[in-house]
């Protein structure tokens, strides 16, 4: 092995570590920028029957309602979760959900269950989720199928 290869072998790890340190700084600054992502319903949404999945990449939330309590369950821990019930005049009433045992479960008493108690009942909902590094939002319809 000649002197140049030896020099390169000594310098390369320094550049590699420098690269990783700078990449870490870059990623950290990127993560601090607030970004918004749209959640899209995955299949038919039926909140009353615990079948309402909204997705954005690997992030998923499940919106469900039972006994008057609406729950949002997510694949990542959330900072806040707000559900909006939209009426016929497109007026949205917000329901700020509270954490239930862990940041993966958020719940609150809402009138959604009463509005969707019969088969065929539907409602327009919106959700805004805050998570480290961004906000997720969705506007979707739920319809009771059984």
């Amino acid at each position, binding site marked *: *092995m000649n002197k*140049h*290869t030896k020099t390169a072998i000594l310098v*390369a790890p320094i550049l590699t570590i420098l*690269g990783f340190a*700078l*990449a870490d700084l870059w990623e950290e600054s990127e993560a601090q920028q607030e970004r918004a992502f749209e959640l899209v319903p995955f299949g038919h949404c039926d909140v009353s029957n615990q079948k309402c999945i909204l997705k954005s990449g690997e992030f998923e939330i499940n919106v469900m309602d039972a006994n008057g309590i609406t729950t949002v369950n997510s694949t990542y821990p959330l900072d806040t979760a707000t559900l909006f019930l939209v009426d016929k005049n497109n007026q949205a009433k917000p329901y700020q959900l509270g954490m239930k045992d862990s940041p993966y479960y958020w719940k609150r008493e809402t009138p959604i269950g009463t509005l969707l108690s019969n088969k065929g009942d539907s409602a327009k909902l919106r959700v805004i989720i805050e998570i480290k590094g961004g906000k997720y939002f969705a506007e979707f319809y739920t319809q009771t199928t059984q």
Partner: protein
Amino acid sequence: MEDKQSYWQENLRLIFICLAIWFVVSFGFGLLLVEPLNAIRLGGYKLGFWFAQQGSIYTFVGLIFWYGKKMNDLDKKYNVEDS
């Protein structure tokens, strides 16, 4: 004296080429262009992710030997090889 300067200039040129390749594979492919590269799959892995995790390291190892070889050639050209 002129030979020494010329040798040093070519040496610097090689170093800058190596640094440019180092920047392109680590920051370019691993960070700045990671999203478009992730659309391409390499052995089941997203290409941008692969460059960030393994590809850049392989390139660095390759650069070590490439630099060594090019410097050897330069030593021969300027007749300054190790005795």
